[in-house]
């Protein structure tokens, strides 16, 4: 199931599940749990400022907080995700404080976790997490697509054109491919760049197309699949345009 967690449908889905849960349908919990767990974990991680996996103690606290939020939530309180985020964050901070009191002189006392934790956060904190998650979904999908072409992000970091001019050229080639049916189908079927075509009909510099093959493919894929977040990153723009936006 793919839906960005900052869309209206997503909110509706959650609200629907919440209503079901309130009406006694415990199965609704399972559906919503899978959807919301990444968010819960991400909030925990950001609160603790380190990676929290499902096996960590903090994840358990997040789960409890999740149940608590479901119980206490009311439609008038605004978006469920924001409410949930706040509950999880507060519970984790409570837990950390207790922990600190119990063993004053453990390593946790020496780390600087405590200092960042108590900071108050507003809704933008959780909205930012939602954006991050949405972007993460896009990136994961792109990663899967790229694997079909045998391209990893590591390769991309290696072959990415360093000069702005070259980069814009490569991005223009990618755009060309994405907008042209023939070229597009060639790329998707053969998993290669239609070099001959590009060179003969579009006067594309073979050197650029060859050297930055992986970069061009990745960029084309982003155009093709209309990743809303990532697309804004790879649109060809010159310096002048940059200032405008």
């Amino acid at each position, binding site marked *: 199931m793919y839906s960005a967690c900052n869309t209206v449908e997503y909110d509706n889905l959650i609200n629907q599940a919440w209503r079901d849960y309130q009406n006694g349908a415990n199965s609704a919990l399972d559906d919503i749990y899978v959807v919301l767990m990444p968010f819960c974990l*991400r909030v925990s991680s950001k609160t603790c400022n*380190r990676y929290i996996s499902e096996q960590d103690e903090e994840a358990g606290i997040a789960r409890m907080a999740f149940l608590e939020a479901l119980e206490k939530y009311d439609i008038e309180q605004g978006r469920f995700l924001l409410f949930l985020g706040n509950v999880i964050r507060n519970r984790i901070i409570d837990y950390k404080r207790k922990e600190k009191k119990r063993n004053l002189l453990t390593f946790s006392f020496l780390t600087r976790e405590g200092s960042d934790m108590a900071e108050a956060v507003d809704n933008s904190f959780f909205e930012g997490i939602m954006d991050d998650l949405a972007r993460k979904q896009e*990136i994961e999908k*792109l990663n899967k697509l790229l694997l079909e072409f045998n391209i990893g*992000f590591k390769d991309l970091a290696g072959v*990415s054109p360093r000069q702005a001019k070259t980069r814009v050229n490569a991005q223009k080639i990618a755009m060309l491919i994405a907008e042209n049916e023939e070229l597009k189908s060639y790329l998707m079927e053969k998993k290669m760049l239609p070099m001959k075509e590009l060179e003969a009909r579009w006067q594309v510099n073979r050197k650029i197309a060859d050297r930055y093959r992986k970069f061009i493919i990745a960029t084309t894929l982003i155009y093709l699949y209309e990743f809303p977040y990532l697309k804004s*990153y790879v649109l060809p723009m010159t310096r002048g345009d940059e*200032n405008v936006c």
Partner: protein
Amino acid sequence: MSARKAVVVEVGKGWAIVLEPDGEYKKVMTSAYLEVGDSYQLKSGTKFKYLTAAALFLTILLGSIDYYTVQAYAEVSSLVELGVNRWGRVISVQAKDKEGQIVLDTVKIRNDRLETAVEKVSQAIKEESPQMKGAIQTDSRSVKSKNKSNRNLEEKMLKEIDKGLERANKSNNIKNKVIKNNRNKAINQSLPQFRNPSNNEEMAESDAAINEEPEGQKQEKKPDHKQERVNQDDQLEKHKDIPGKKSKTDAVPPKAKQEKDANSKKNNSNDR
């Protein structure tokens, strides 16, 4: 949206691959906690900053090392040896014997130009040890540079020493005259404590020397006749140097000495 951040596309231990706002994929080294999808603020120019800091540090370090490296040793008299760096500044001072040590204790010449250092030292020698009268001679000076290729520096230093000696001589002559003047005044006023029998001979001699000098333009500063003459002599000596004329010993009575110092300072500033 002018300052957009890069987005993290892959993370590992200590590194992350980010997609920059202009479409470039980049691997960054970071120990910060990041996850895929996070935005990442590129720290532009950190490398450059470190490089600049390092370069600056190195420059200062090497510069000061170079400054404190003795390039040549200048021997002004048989008493002292001065180490000079490439910019002609006195870096190290070494006395050859006890006498020299006493002289060096009285002057501060570190980081001075060789010219001024020589001047100070030669004055100090004259003041501190009258019996070493002949210690400073223009022909006893020598410069030995550490590496033989450094002829330029040697010559420059020799010139500076000459200048310094010259200036020391000048101010000494002036001093002597002022002292004489004071002494004459004292004699005129017939104060007995200023009559120093051991110096009478010399006094007469120098007085004779002054009398031999041809007369120059008149300067009217003080009504005192003798003072006037001395001033004339000063003027002359500024224009032509008399190499044979060496400074005279100064067995100065304490009061007169103080006055002399003040006067010589005045004269020095006039010189410059």
